[in-house]
């Protein structure tokens, strides 16, 4: 009768040996190739360190000018540019400038890498159904697997600090841009594609002159989501020694420093809102011609 009440399972000791065996082989892998893999990521690491150092060393008025400029260029809204500068000044005034610069350097590098990897994968997925079928479950896995499950092996390979943090952020923030690029291209009107075919355009022309431009709203929604998710990972990344706004949050969670936690948490929110609004406005402007306004 045991059959009905006890699910058949691997014996306790077999299970333990299996786990130990996998662990041991990972450890010997890490011992053998860890240094090489670390060396492979070194350029990325030094780029991150450099960028962070430049951002921290740069005089703050220059950073503010750059922020205002980028915000205005992206959104064409003086209000938004002014709001961004004001938030930066307030964050700096409350002593979080350095942490904010560290966070910004991590987030911007993560976002750039996500875009560089994500959009081509999304395009591939939209072209081949098989690629889509293969990659979709991987994306599901990336978005749901508990972070420390893959973070610990990464830390064993690469040590603590920025690169494993960056990898964690990318793993979590990459799926939206892939999904939305794929979706956006697939949603392009068949009639439009037929018209393009009628004009004798090849795949490249169709892709770059028809599909991607028409999919831009969705792609931009993806970029936007990617930035948001990257910011959401800041605290997790600091759990493996990444400097930035996440570190004080971590500290305050464990010590019940309410104000410290709130201040740094709100700074992350402020950054998120700025990035969000600017990228959304930029995305809207790109498709403004659709609605006949502001023809460029």
């Amino acid at each position, binding site marked *: 009768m045991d059959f009905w009440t006890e699910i058949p399972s691997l014996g306790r000791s077999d299970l333990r040996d299996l786990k130990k065996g996998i662990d041991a082989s990972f450890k010997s892998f890490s011992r053998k190739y860890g240094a090489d893999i670390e060396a492979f990521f070194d350029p990325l690491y030094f780029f991150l360190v450099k960028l962070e150092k430049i951002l921290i060393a740069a005089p703050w008025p220059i950073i503010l000018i750059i922020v205002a400029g980028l915000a205005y260029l992206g959104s064409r809204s003086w209000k938004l540019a002014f709001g961004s500068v004001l938030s930066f000044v307030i964050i700096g005034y409350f002593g979080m400038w350095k942490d904010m610069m560290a966070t910004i350097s991590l987030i911007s590098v993560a976002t750039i890498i996500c875009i560089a990897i994500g959009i081509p994968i999304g395009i591939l997925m939209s072209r081949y159904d098989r690629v889509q079928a293969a990659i979709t479950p991987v994306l599901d896995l990336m978005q749901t697997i508990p972070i420390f499950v893959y973070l*610990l092996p990464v830390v064993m*390979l690469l040590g603590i600090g920025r690169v494993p943090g960056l990898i964690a952020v990318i793993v979590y923030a990459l799926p939206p841009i892939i999904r939305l690029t794929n979706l956006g291209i697939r949603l392009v009107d068949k009639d439009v594609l037929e018209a393009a075919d009628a004009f004798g355009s090849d795949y490249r022309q169709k892709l770059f002159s028809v599909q991607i431009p028409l999919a831009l709203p969705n792609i931009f929604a993806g970029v936007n989501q990617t930035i948001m998710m990257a910011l959401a990972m800041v605290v997790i990344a600091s*759990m493996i*020694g990444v400097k930035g706004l996440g570190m004080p949050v971590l*500290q305050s969670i464990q010590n019940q420093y309410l104000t410290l936690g709130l201040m740094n948490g709100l700074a992350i929110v402020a950054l998120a809102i700025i990035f969000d609004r600017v990228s959304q406005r930029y995305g809207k402007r790109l498709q403004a011609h659709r609605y006949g306004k502001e023809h460029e």
Partner: protein
Amino acid sequence: MKKFLTSTLAAGVLALLSNQAVAACGSITMADMNWPSATLMANVDKIILEEGYGCEIELVAGATTTTFASMNEKGQPDVAAELWINAVREPLFAAMDEGRLHSARKMPITDLGEGWWVPSYTLEKNPDIKTVLDILERPDLFPAKEDPSKGEFIGCPAGWGCQLSNINLFRAFEMEKKGWILVDPGSQAGLDASMAKAVERGDNWFGYYWAPTAPVGRFGMKMMDFGVPFAGAENWDGCIAKAEQDCADPKPSSWTQSEVHTVVTTNFKDQASTAMDYFAKRIYPGDVMGKMLVYMDDNQAQGIDAAIEFLEKYEDVWTSWVTPEVASKVKSSL
């Protein structure tokens, strides 16, 4: 709340019905703290108190500061088996003076402590290094990834009590001037992994750690003598253990003697006075605890599995903590 009411009611009815053993102890919440030796102790306590003393025990997960804050403010959980009091010394002693919290056992494990550690092979290869002071002259042995011209000292994870002590000692020993960087590993996982990674590859590693822990035994880590005496409780409690802005002039000092207590609430003391005798006798020898921790690590054992292993394997240790009658009850339950 409703659940609580029903459970107290049920406990009351039960007590009326059986009216001896159960009533002697009642239902108790115990902190199952989030590191191996504490979770082992909590689970051993749970088994012995439930089987031997008829208590009903619920384990509540928690960390040092959060568990202490909850015990201090709410009187829950009732028991913290392994409370490292350095982080919570002042409020804990205040609560003890007011009679809200009690130490049921000072130093429940022998040979424990915090400090700065290096792998033993680092000492073998550099026989001139005897103390922390010697290490501080050699940042070149521990090159930091970020800036290889500097030495890397791995501090204590953000938010832990020891984070402040490490930051202030870093300042006290003027380590920045001597060419060191303080790295915050962010979490215990980060701290452990950085040590494991270094030792697996035979690199030098210098950082904060504590015993009894599995990594210390497994990687052959050595706690370094600081080379300076303990510079007094005033320096430590009034400065080193405080936030950086409250510690203007930290003096170099060896690490304060770690004090670990099994802390209980007044409620528990009144309710389960027989169990207090058990706690009073319960001392884990450091080497037994060390072996148990390596066992837990090797077998990825949960607290409850490790507790059973301990009760089966080290019978001579724990049977001396309880009466023969209780011991036989616990044994038969295994």
